């Protein structure tokens, strides 16, 4: 199996900011990402859980984005602008991908 190196970026961010984050990523030329639901968590702003919640306010989502190394900088710039005043975590991992032509 031929694999190529790429970066896996994981951004955990408040649910009401999802739309703004993904729009910013798209504007920065990011072609693909995937959004995972989050059940709850803990951080400096305390513990939270989605159980029984109606408002999107008290929740987060995880956005995963696999991207070529050379485009990482733009992505992080775009993400940082959205995330900077907000809670949330941005992490980047090295990875290998199949079908690299897609990224």
């Amino acid at each position, binding site marked *: 199996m031929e694999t190529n190196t790429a970066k896996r970026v994981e951004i955990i961010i408040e649910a009401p900011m999802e739309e703004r984050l993904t729009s910013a990523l798209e504007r920065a030329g990011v072609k693909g990402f995937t959004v995972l639901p989050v059940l709850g968590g803990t951080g400096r702003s305390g513990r939270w859980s989605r159980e029984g919640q*109606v408002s999107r306010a008290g929740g987060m989502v995880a956005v995963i984005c696999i991207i070529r190394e050379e485009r990482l900088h733009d992505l992080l710039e775009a993400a940082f602008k959205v995330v900077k005043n907000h809670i949330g975590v941005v992490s980047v991992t090295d990875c290998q991908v199949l079908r690299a032509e897609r990224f």
Partner: protein
Amino acid sequence: MLETILGLAADNLLSPIILFFVLGLAAAMLRSDLSVPEAIAKGLSIYLLFAIGYKGGVAVSDHGIDATLLMTLTAGIVLSFVLPLIAFALLGVMTRLNRTDAAAVAGHYGSISIVTFVAATSILKSQGILSEGYMVAVAAAMEAPAILSALWLASRGGGNVADSSEREGLLREILLNGSIVLLVGSFLIGLVTGKEGLAEIESFIVAPFKGVLCLFLLDMGLVAGRGLRNSRGTLTAGLISFGIVMPVLSSLLGLAAGLLVGLSTGGVMLLMTLSASASYIAVPAAMRVALPQANPSVYLTMSLGVTFPFNLTLGIPLYLSLASFFGN
């Protein structure tokens, strides 16, 4: 009058609705793992908005549009704009919140809580008191203005409000907020389809309504209790006092406005309840986007953990007594 209030309050405290809220609160405080799935909670709230909006529309289509409709809408919007200013001033006196947190909390108290409204209509119904069907539309109109006041309050102090790229789209988001759209949309559909339409879906939105409300309040109790448990330390005596004083104050402004506009006793009471209630769906979400520095556990706990239970148990009977006393 005190007797009436106490009598109403006692009746109210022993209604299934309140008791299920208390059950949820107690379960969460005791750290039971009882929980309502998020999807079910959202489903219940969709049902309530759908039913309350539709029935409001049918009521208006039935009784005709009252001359006071426009005036009441205007009064509601003005209240929603003004109440945050009062709340902000009061918070400055009663608490040590910083400007951003105070602005965020103030915004919640200008806006409304639809479940508090629903609980109030359900007491009116059980007392056989009529009210204007369009109060649902007033509720919808009062959701958003308070958010703008809150943002203005925060920015006045140079507060780090969302930059333009974030603010962009915020207004649209607020006005097209899911709960407003569903409430107003159902209201309009009720208005168009009228009694005939209601007959078709009555056994879905009328008969089971109160039972669904019980389940929803169970869930609200669970969420409120979890919030209170996780926010030990957040709630100072000053904040708690504010959470009780503010709704009473707001209800008096609502009373004045309602009497001025010439609403029926039921309508006055509902306007009081709307004024007194604090948002916990639309405003928190807007604050996360527009005032990210504000501490969510403050405003959520205040709104859901202090003011909501107060209104539900004591506030609503009080507002009803006052409205009956001053109303015609």
